[in-house]
């Protein structure tokens, strides 16, 4: 079985395991749920580090993967800190240094996508390839998402009775979601360049992962208090994040195996030539 298919089944199994424990577990097992949830970001961070290794730290060809993988590592650190603060130190994880890691993660992922955009030499001409009806639908969706995030994630996030740090991070997440929307749009432009090629499928998985994160963030903006109090069904918001992380991991694994395949192919050609 191909490695990419194997990783797809393994990641799917992991998601089913996490989802089953959230859906069927009692609220008393929230410690267990949140512990196994961490497997998703850790898997994404490991996949990202594997993808960095294949290019090396300094290769310009891998700059996009480097920043995206670092973004995943920062999100994972944020998740681990959130987990430690909430479940071990029994202190409110918001606002905390965990939020700092999350927000830096968004910026790093955006830089990675920007690097990929530069590499793909995307121009506005590429938008024409999408077609007018699809372009109109995407523009409408993006406009609606920007309105929702701007209102609920930024405008309503400001709390005059809260401290400066709480407001900084609260509004920061709204701005980070705007970054996610723009990132998804940029990733779509990259797909139009590589349409039909294996690089495009990496970005397709990546966009779906970004959208799952965005959905999770929007739901968190609505039901943050219920979520933090471990109430059902609000805790299912975690499943959007877990699914997003596992899709990021899948995209990174596929990228890793793609480059390995190119390497093996040319190695074989070199051996045959000798």
């Amino acid at each position: 079985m191909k490695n990419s298919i194997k990783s797809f089944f393994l990641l799917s199994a992991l998601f089913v395991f996490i989802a089953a424990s959230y859906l069927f577990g009692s609220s008393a097992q929230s410690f267990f749920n949140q512990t196994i949830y961490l497997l998703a970001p850790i898997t994404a961070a490991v996949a990202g580090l594997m993808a960095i290794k294949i290019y090396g730290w300094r290769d310009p060809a891998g700059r996009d993967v480097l920043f995206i993988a670092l973004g995943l590592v920062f999100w994972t650190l944020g998740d681990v800190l959130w987990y430690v603060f909430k479940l071990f130190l029994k202190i409110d994880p918001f606002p905390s240094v965990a939020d700092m890691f999350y927000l830096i993660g968004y910026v790093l992922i955006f830089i990675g996508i920007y690097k990929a955009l530069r590499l793909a030499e995307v121009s506005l001409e590429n938008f024409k390839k999408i077609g007018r009806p699809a372009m109109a639908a995407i523009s409408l969706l993006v406009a609606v998402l920007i309105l929702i995030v701007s209102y609920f994630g930024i405008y309503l996030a400001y709390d005059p009775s809260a401290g400066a740090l709480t407001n900084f991070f609260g509004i920061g997440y709204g701005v980070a979601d705007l970054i996610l929307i723009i990132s998804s749009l940029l990733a779509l432009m990259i797909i139009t360049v590589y349409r039909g090629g294996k690089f495009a499928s990496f970005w397709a998985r990546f966009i779906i992962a970004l959208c799952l994160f965005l959905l999770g963030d929007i739901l968190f903006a609505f039901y943050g208090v219920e979520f933090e109090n471990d109430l059902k069904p609000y805790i299912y918001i975690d499943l959007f994040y877990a699914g997003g992380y596992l899709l990021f991991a899948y995209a990174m694994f596929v990228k890793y195996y793609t480059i390995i395949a190119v390497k093996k192919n040319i190695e074989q050609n070199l051996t045959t030539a000798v």
Partner: protein
Amino acid sequence: MSVENNDIRQQAITIIAKYFGRDIAAMYEKYYANKPDELVSSSLALLLEEYLGKAEADVQLKKLSSEVNINSYEKQY
């Protein structure tokens, strides 16, 4: 080896390095060393089509052929 031969190899390796990294480009450099121009072009075209898609592969190959021609022209005159 003609000037043109060197150019097409160099340009092909530059494109490979851009998308697949320096390690893979170095391996292709070895592989292309004694190969005819046609094989270099067709091998590059196959690689780019598989990973970048047909449209972008065509764009890159078009750029490559025009750059090789310009360099070859400049070196001759």
